[in-house]
């Protein structure tokens, strides 16, 4: 039975739901799944992780207590735990944290690493990932003595597979080689991250100003969506770069992507083409996005979005009253 390590991510004290897709990607009848948690929450999430098929929960801490966030000491702790347990395959999310930790681990181990995998075969050591701004899908073989993979958030569907889980504490020495995390500044835009959201509503040139993004935030608040933007809107400084979807911004795969006033350049598609459903609202029926989406509405977004927000608010309100949701 091969042991597979999974780097679990916690956000604001909760298990990110995209973790479950990574667990699904790692699961196989002949694999034993080891979840790595580094913030001292291993015992707390035991039943959640067991429900998705994790057999061993490795609760990593330092000899001085819980590990404070530091990408160097976290990476070294994970490597020590992998070596201690005889694990040579590690999966994680291609998230901000995954992009910090997985390459560091791969570099220290001199192991092959493929980020943003959309399909995986752990026996053959092959994965699929998009390249060239999403224009091609490459099948890649990793050769080495250990293997590290970053999974694209939402690329795999979560699949429950209840089992018994055991929590194993693992202590490592506190180490950091020169790099000090002085502070973490929380951003102005609180709420759901683009890579985590089931629904994203994005604005482009058609938004015309920074203030107008308010109508997208109002929609997002009602339905629990994240707000994104095209490069044009970011370059015009209407919204911060952290909201940019596309080639030089975030790559996202929500269930629904609603593009408002976005023409749909190749570079924008690079960041959102693997979305479940793409909906476009644009006044121009010839805009590129209307040729490559699932549904489009040729109309003024300033008219459509507020109506959509109001109608969804009514539905959500009814559901809450009748207790169906």
């Amino acid at each position, binding site marked *: 039975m091969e042991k597979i390590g999974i780097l679990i991510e916690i956000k604001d004290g909760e298990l990110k739901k995209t973790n479950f897709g990574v667990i699904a990607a790692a699961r196989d009848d002949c694999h034993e799944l080891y979840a790595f948690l580094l913030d001292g929450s291993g015992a707390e999430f035991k039943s959640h992780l067991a429900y998705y098929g994790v057999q061993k929960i490795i609760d990593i801490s330092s000899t001085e207590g819980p590990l404070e966030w530091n990408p160097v000491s976290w990476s070294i702790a994970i490597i020590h735990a992998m070596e201690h347990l005889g694990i040579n395959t590690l999966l994680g999310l291609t998230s901000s944290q995954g992009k910090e930790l997985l390459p560091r681990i*791969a570099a220290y181990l001199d192991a092959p690493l*493929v980020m943003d995998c959309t399909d995986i075969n752990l026996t053959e050591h092959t994965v699929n990932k998009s390249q060239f701004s999403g224009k091609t899908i490459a099948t890649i073989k990793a050769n080495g003595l250990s293997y590290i993979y970053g999974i694209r958030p939402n690329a795999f569907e979560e699949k429950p597979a209840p089992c018994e889980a055991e929590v194993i504490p693992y202590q490592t020495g506190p180490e950091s080689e020169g*790099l000090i995390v002085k502070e973490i*500044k929380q951003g102005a835009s609180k*709420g759901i991250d683009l*890579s985590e959201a089931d629904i994203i509503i994005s604005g482009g040139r058609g938004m015309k100003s920074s203030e107008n993004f308010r109508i997208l935030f109002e929609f997002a608040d009602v339905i629990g969506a994240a707000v994104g933007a095209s490069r044009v809107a970011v370059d015009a400084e209407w919204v911060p770069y*952290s909201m940019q979807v596309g080639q030089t911004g975030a790559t996202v795969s929500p269930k629904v992507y609603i593009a408002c006033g976005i023409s749909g350049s190749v570079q924008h598609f690079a960041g959102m083409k693997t979305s*479940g459903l793409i909906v476009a609202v644009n006044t121009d029926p010839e805009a590129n996005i209307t040729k*490559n989406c699932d549904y489009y509405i040729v109309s003024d977004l300033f008219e459509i979005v507020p109506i959509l927000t109001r109608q969804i608010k009514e539905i959500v309100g009814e559901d809450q009253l009748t207790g169906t949701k």
Partner: protein
Amino acid sequence: MKICVCVKHVPDSAAKITIKGKNQFDESINFILNPYDEHAVEEAVRVKKQVGDSEVIAVSVGKKDAINTLRSALAMGADRAILIKTNIRADSVITSRALKAAIGQDGKPDIIFTGKASIDNEGFQTMYRLAAALNMSVASNVIAFSLDQERVLVECEMEADARGIIDMPLPCVIGTSKGLNKPSYPTLPAIMKAKKKEVKIIDLESLAIEKPMSSIEILELKPAVEERSSKELKGQPEEVVMQLIRVLREEAKVL
């Protein structure tokens, strides 16, 4: 101060990728300086001006045409360049070893800047491998950078607009993100001047890199299938919104 900038010659994001054979593509398309590396060059030149008495060296691993990308970096203000020439499509393991060897031959730098990812392979890892090989500290996704004598202070993008404030000793490797600066487009005189700057060409083979134990092999390239039916929802605003809500509820099941 000695500052290196690692840059990559990549297909223009607007170019059409035509697959050749099983795992190759037609390379007779427009190639550019990797957009994230523009921020790396810009920052290196800015630091040079700030510190004074410094040199910026642009380094690339690529085919002979990658010299064009090095010329772009020179036009943006780099002083000289090194091309590590190879005909293979080097993976990040080979690339980082090649960079280490060439940079080592040239003399150890104080800072190495490079973009946080290349837009062709999107591997997000070469800077980490290079830092490990050179035994330097590394931070990527950097959107603010400052020098304080023997240490650097950077801000790194984290999730949902949060920023990690990191303090590291020199020498170090910095992976630059888009928010760091606004690259200036070179002027015509700068482009002319860049043509006269030194570009040293080294064959990858001559660096005699030991064959690594790990590698990435592209078995197959396929075009990404794009089949979306693009149906128009028609009617008065209230009606189209009702249709859209039905789609969100029944098809996407998000309501």
